[in-house]
């Protein structure tokens, strides 16, 4: 089964298998999904590792992502330059982290980066407001949003500096057993 494909060399496929949570078959399936997004752009031969990036607009039109309010942040976090345009490596990485087999720590790390809208290394109140607004699609009043943010900081901020660091976030994730099942995209 594995020797018939001509897209990757044997070593490349082995490397992908060892570095992600996917099997050979799933990696090929993901490659064809990636290729379908931009058939003119993505070559069918990756043995020479071409430097091809699929633009963000096409990525966000995928059925798995198009109704996700955080799709822009997800694409930005996993893309190389933070602009949402993804190479095949970024694409595989994204779905590998969001798959079932990824451990909790890894998911928590990337979830933290996704919710950190201003990329300053911790989740401040503005980031929280953005998150809540995106979650409720702007239907909560400003006062309710700020109340919620205040409660969140009260609960999760361990060192009381007004923002959540990665450790505070991970501490809070440990208390949420549903995190593994909700932070999961099936592909």
């Amino acid at each position, binding site marked *: 089964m594995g020797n018939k494909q001509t897209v990757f060399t044997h070593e490349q496929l082995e490397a992908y298998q060892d570095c992600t949570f996917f099997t050979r078959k799933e990696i090929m399936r993901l490659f064809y999904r990636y290729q379908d997004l931009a058939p003119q752009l993505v070559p069918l031969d990756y043995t020479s590792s071409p430097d091809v990036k699929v633009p963000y607009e096409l990525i966000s039109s995928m059925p798995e992502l198009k109704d996700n309010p*955080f799709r822009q942040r997800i694409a930005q976090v996993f893309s190389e330059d933070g602009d949402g345009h993804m190479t095949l490596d970024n694409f595989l990485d994204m779905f590998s982290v969001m798959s079932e087999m990824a451990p909790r720590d890894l998911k928590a790390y990337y979830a933290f980066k996704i919710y950190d809208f201003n990329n300053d290394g911790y989740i401040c109140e503005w980031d929280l407001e953005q998150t809540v607004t995106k979650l409720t699609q702007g239907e909560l009043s400003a006062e309710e949003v700020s109340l919620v943010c205040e409660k969140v900081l009260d*609960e999760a901020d*361990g060192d009381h500096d007004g923002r959540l660091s990665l*450790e505070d976030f991970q501490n*809070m994730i440990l208390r949420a057993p*549903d995190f593994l099942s*909700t932070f999961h*995209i099936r592909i």
Partner: protein
Amino acid sequence: MAQPLNFVLSVPETPEDHGQEPSPYDESDVHDSFHQLIQEQSRWVAEEGLELQEQERGAGAPQTTGSGRPVPLGPEDAGAHSTATLRILASMPSRTIGRSRGAIISQYYNRTVQLRRRVSRPELRGVGRSARPSLRLYDLELDPAALEEEEKRLLLVKELQGLTVAQRDHMLRAMPLGLAEKRCLREESQTPSGKQRGRPGRRGLLPCCGRLRDACVLALHGLGLGLLSGLLALMPWRYALKRIGGRFGSSVLSYFLFLKTLLAFNALLLLPLLAFLVGVQAAFPPPASPGSAPSFTGLELLTGGGSFNHTVLYYGYYSNSTLNRPCALPPEGQCGREADTLPYNMPLAYLFTVGVSFFITCITLVYSMSCSFGESYRVGSASGVHAVTVFCSWDHKVTQRRASRLQCDNIRTHLKELLAERQRRQGPRSACGRLRQVAVLGLVWLLCLGTTVGCTVAVYAFSELMIKSSVSADQEGALLALPVVVCLLNLGAPYLFRCLAALERQDSPVLEVYLAICRNLIFKMAILGILCYHWLGRRVGTLKNQCWENFVGQELYRLTVLDFIFVLLDTLFGELVWRLISEKKLKRREKPEFDIAGNVLELIYGQTLTWLGVLFCPLLPAVQIIKLLLIFYVKKTSLMANCQAPRRPWLASHMSTVFVSLLCFPSFLGAAVFLCYAVWQVKPSSTCGPFRTLDTMYEAGKVWVRHLEAAGPRVSWLPWVHRYLVENTFPVYLVSALLLAVIYLNIQVVKGQRRVICLLKEQISNEGEDKVFLINRLHSVYERKERSRVGRSQEAERLVDDPDAW
């Protein structure tokens, strides 16, 4: 003892010596390892720090320290601090974990080293009060050696080379680096494979058996994963589950995943039975019974009797002798094959196979329950509901626009409820209101229990009626009466309980669900209990000369099949017809909700029936597998067409744990008790089955042990084990005492962990205060230095303008 941070910044106590104070600007005085990070950060801060600079001069008064608690920083205070302070703050080790690649690499280097040295958890004693105990329990980058990122990378690569392949892969996959980087690391660490073995005693001697154990564990794990993935790949449900998850979310998906789990359990139960009982007996059929066997009519599929009676489906078919026994006497026409001389003791095989399959099921259940518990229950997980809602409640599996909008609505409602609850809780409820609620709750419980008792009595009375009006073999259809009554009651009771629960008006939706599950479970178990008494207590007596085991097996078969039919009816009327009525007549756009708890309880009930019936009908798990497959497709179709996702937020993970534990405790335990009673206490019928000449089924084992005793001294340990460990009651007491001790120890460990968590939280809070203190001191130092510099420059300007002032 405490290991002090290597912070080379000494702030003197007296404010007078300005000249000797090292300024935060002097990078040579600041810690070396911050150097590169500071450069990185200063670029970023310079890009976005314009608004900060305006507030730099003329900022608010420097906060005095020493007078009580320093004011904690708010985001509006951040602008009041200088860019230099911010730079230092931003480059602190605890803040750079998430950002700097160098920090990640060195962290994973530490982790790899500790993996090789097999240090599992550092003692809290060794962690100083000043170093913040990291959640990941490994060292942060406090190593004073100034390593460039490239050097750290080389160190990491070298460490990775020292691991086994599986460990290296595991480490690589868990690293939060980009995929291209990981591939480079993998390539570099892969080169000399010979080097892996030639490392004796370099650091941290790894004993050979430890490495072997690692390899075995990893190989087994890999094998298990491979088998599991192969098994899952066989089932063509990946796409179906994805669609269900996409439209309805994780909560409804948990029902279908539970169904898959049950299929796996049934397959596990069926395999030994097929291999050791059904297959063997089918190869050596017993002599045909006198009288013609009835022909197949369609009714057998429902009643399980008729022509099914004399097939391998039921207990009565199995012979009570040793099959394929080598003949010592001249051939009587029966044993013509001298080549196969492997005798097969059928009674013993029957007893052991059923016992072993139950044992395997028990172990698997307990293991999956403990895994589930480990995932979903955490010490101290009660608080933090707002944070969990904001960060963990968006289900990324949902892919349809309408479902996505529904999820937004749900989360918004939940947040509003949380905010409202907080305000409501602040107002104490009157004693009268609370009393009234307790009274209503008590009344509803009384009604539910009364219904249960009433239905139980009705089933008992009906069963006695069935005994009195003894049914002849021709009226097989009339035997369906009792199962139909039972299924009708099972169908109607949940609806009644739901109506009664509407009276209660519970605040918490989760509590509502738990109460509903509790009531339904009590009802179903009571009905099953009375049926078990009816079979083992009454039917055994009335069917003296007939095969009562076959009868019980057929009853359970009938119950299983009718349960399936009633599930179909329930789906039809509960979902399809209700949707049509609500759309056409009541003109509502809302579809009925998918009742997850009710459906899961139905599955658990069906599985209990299977476990009860395995002893009397060894192929019942196969029937259950077919039934589960059909239920999957029926429920999926009905769900897609008629239902909508539940409105209330559903703790999918907790619920899965609850379901698995319900499967284990009342369901499997009850079936095991029933099995033990049937094996130990009830006299098997004398006309059929493998135990027809014995007093109890267990005696087959005793007979075999006596055979072994007579066989000679070489196998004398087995009878000894039997006499002193199985027949004796002392080992049971010993095992119970050990179990209690283990439970007590676990409780104490959890208590200790809770206390440690409290201490650690306090420590974190203290750390925060320390940081605020230091920042304020830094700020005041810098302010003073700025002021003195401004003062000096102003002096110098004045001197330049007016040289005669001297």
